[in-house]
């Protein structure tokens, strides 16, 4: 709090403004400052309460549950047994592997396609708004609704995808996209690319529009080709945004649940069982809440790691702007 604002704050706290001003300076140092701090906590209290009630308590509860062995309504404290179990089970490591593949491929294509679309949209001369809204549609649709639509599209016998692909002779008519282990992961990845790209596109489009036009003009005068302008003007200017948005997307994608839960439920033969789906299945199919909580805590740890990276990238970007 700066010196200049203190009298005003104290004046508001006390009805007699003039009386405050004539009191000795020690008012600002001693009880006044303490009172100010107390007022600060009053203002913080509602948000603090909500945070504690909605985030901290459930989190603590989840951690507590992860140390228990639950059977029906009974639960016994078993220490780190759940963690020992998951780290030695192949199911967890398989699931983690699928999560990593799913997240890495999805984020890569979100960024690639998102950047491509953003570049196109920036240059689009006609029906710009229409294209923007059109490309945003997958993001506006609720993921589970989108997933249901995709299940229909990919339906082996009557689905539009098989119909169209067999029409041009690419596949035979009964390709079971979600029923074949080797195809299922690829299918949900494609659907997640469809879902996740628009958000990245929107972020990058905003970034592209923030690049000063005259940098491109200066590059054109310097003799840079379109590729060189992309390489030496667009990319360096987008660098921090690319890092920040890919980290953000990573955090979002690694915990994404809806699409896979609706489309495959983790199957066939666990081929698409990413960590969030494994947690769900462990908790609600096997009724093993303790183990599910333990996997949840591990996933939280992974996400926290990326969050730290994200915050650092943000701070770096901000420092660069100063």
């Amino acid at each position, binding site marked *: 709090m700066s010196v200049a604002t203190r009298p005003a704050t104290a004046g508001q706290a006390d009805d007699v403004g003039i009386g405050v001003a004539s009191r000795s300076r020690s008012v600002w140092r001693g009880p006044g400052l303490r009172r100010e701090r107390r007022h600060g906590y009053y203002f913080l209290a509602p948000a603090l309460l909500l945070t504690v009630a909605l985030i901290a308590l459930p989190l603590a509860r989840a951690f507590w549950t992860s140390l228990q062995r639950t059977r029906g309504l009974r639960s016994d404290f078993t220490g780190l047994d759940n963690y020992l179990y998951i780290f030695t089970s192949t199911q967890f490591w398989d699931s983690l592997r699928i999560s990593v593949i799913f997240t890495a491929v999805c984020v890569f294509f979100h960024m690639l396609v998102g950047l491509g679309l953003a570049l196109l949209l920036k240059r689009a001369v006609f029906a710009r708004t229409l294209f923007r809204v059109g490309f945003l549609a997958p993001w506006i649709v609720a993921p589970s609704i989108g997933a249901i639509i995709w299940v229909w599209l990919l339906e082996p016998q009557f689905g539009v995808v098989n119909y169209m692909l067999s029409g041009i002779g690419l596949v035979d008519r009964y390709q079971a996209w979600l029923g074949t282990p080797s195809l299922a992961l690829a299918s949900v990845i494609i659907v997640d690319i469809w879902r996740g790209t628009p958000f990245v596109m929107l972020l990058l489009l905003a970034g592209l529009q923030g690049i*000063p036009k*005259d*940098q491109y*003009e*200066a*590059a*054109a*005068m*310097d*003799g*840079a080709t379109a590729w*060189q302008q992309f390489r*030496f*003007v667009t990319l*360096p*200017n987008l*660098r921090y945004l690319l890092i920040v948005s890919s980290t953000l997307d990573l955090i979002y994608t690694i915990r994404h649940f809806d699409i896979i839960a609706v489309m495959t439920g983790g199957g066939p033969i666990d081929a698409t069982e990413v960590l969030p789906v494994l947690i769900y299945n462990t908790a609600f199919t096997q009724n093993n809440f303790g183990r599910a909580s333990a996997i949840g805590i591990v996933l939280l740890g992974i996400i926290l790691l990326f969050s730290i990276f994200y915050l650092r990238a943000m701070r770096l970007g901000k420092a*660069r702007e*100063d």
Partner: protein
Amino acid sequence: MAKLELSGVKKSYGSTDVLKGIDLTVEDGEFVAFVGPSGCGKSTLLRLICGLDEISEGTMAIDGHIVNDVPPSKRGIAMVFQSYALYPHMSVADNMGYALRLAGTPNGEIRQRVQAAARILRLDAYLDRKPRQLSGGQRQRVAIGRAIVREPKVFLFDEPLSNLDAALRVDMRIEIARMKERLGTTMVYVTHDQVEAMTLADKIVVLNAGKVEQIGSPLELYNKPGNRFVAGFIGSPKMNFLKLGKGCGNGSYAVAGGSVTLPVFAHAPVEIGIRPEHLTLAERGKNTLSGVVAMTEHLGSDTYAYVALNGAEETVVARIPGEKTFRPRQEVGVEVDASVIHAFAADGTAITSSGNARVAA
């Protein structure tokens, strides 16, 4: 070193004509400034010259070669942008050498030329820094350095000093004047600041609404403006314009409660213009117009006195010595130096005369 010729150059965006036929020759080694109010097309004209925008009609030639279809980087020109347009992620040296690098110049030569330019602009100590670590004036010098390094035939400047504070602007103006002496390259300079144009340019092009109003040396434009627009645009404070009343024969016209006698012109003048320094405030007397001081501005060396003339709607401004003071609402006489009166016809063109004018109350 190059001569730049524009003939009948037009630019339109859709149905809007931004430039309506520009004919202009910039001689080899000449420093030409484009001035005009916002939206007059001066920046557009510069963008046509450097090739960032396409010419709609007409031709442009550098050294006799028509370059309408030549891309910007092949025209042998360099441009200094208003915002400097430095590449934020490159060091000063890389910024300056980027064009050479793209052109495939050997590294040794790039370094040599960058260092030579850095020496001219006193940037030697900053070559490894990034643009964000530099002050506004230093960034401006890097932008100029980037242009110098390319050894262009023509330098283009797009309001290069408008992002700098007043003191720095004066320094950079001197810097550019020095550079002009040193390099002797053809330079085209766009500015809305007429002081920059007057002090730097060999030749000023006054643009208005997409047309050239007048081309001439700074003093020509100041002393013999071709029309009312140029007369009003060049000079600060602005020229005073007074509407002429009825003529009563012998070249005598009523004006602001007095009369003015003008030499006989081919066209009937409707307005006269008097520069602020050609007005003197005095006791009310026989040969003076009269008015009331509305307000004064003291600049130290000069004082600008705004006087509401009796019998006229116009307020005139007089530039008088700095030590003189007048009270607001003080009655004063306004003496006009009649030898330097400008007269304008109804269409705004200046009418030149051989004889002298005379003003009386």
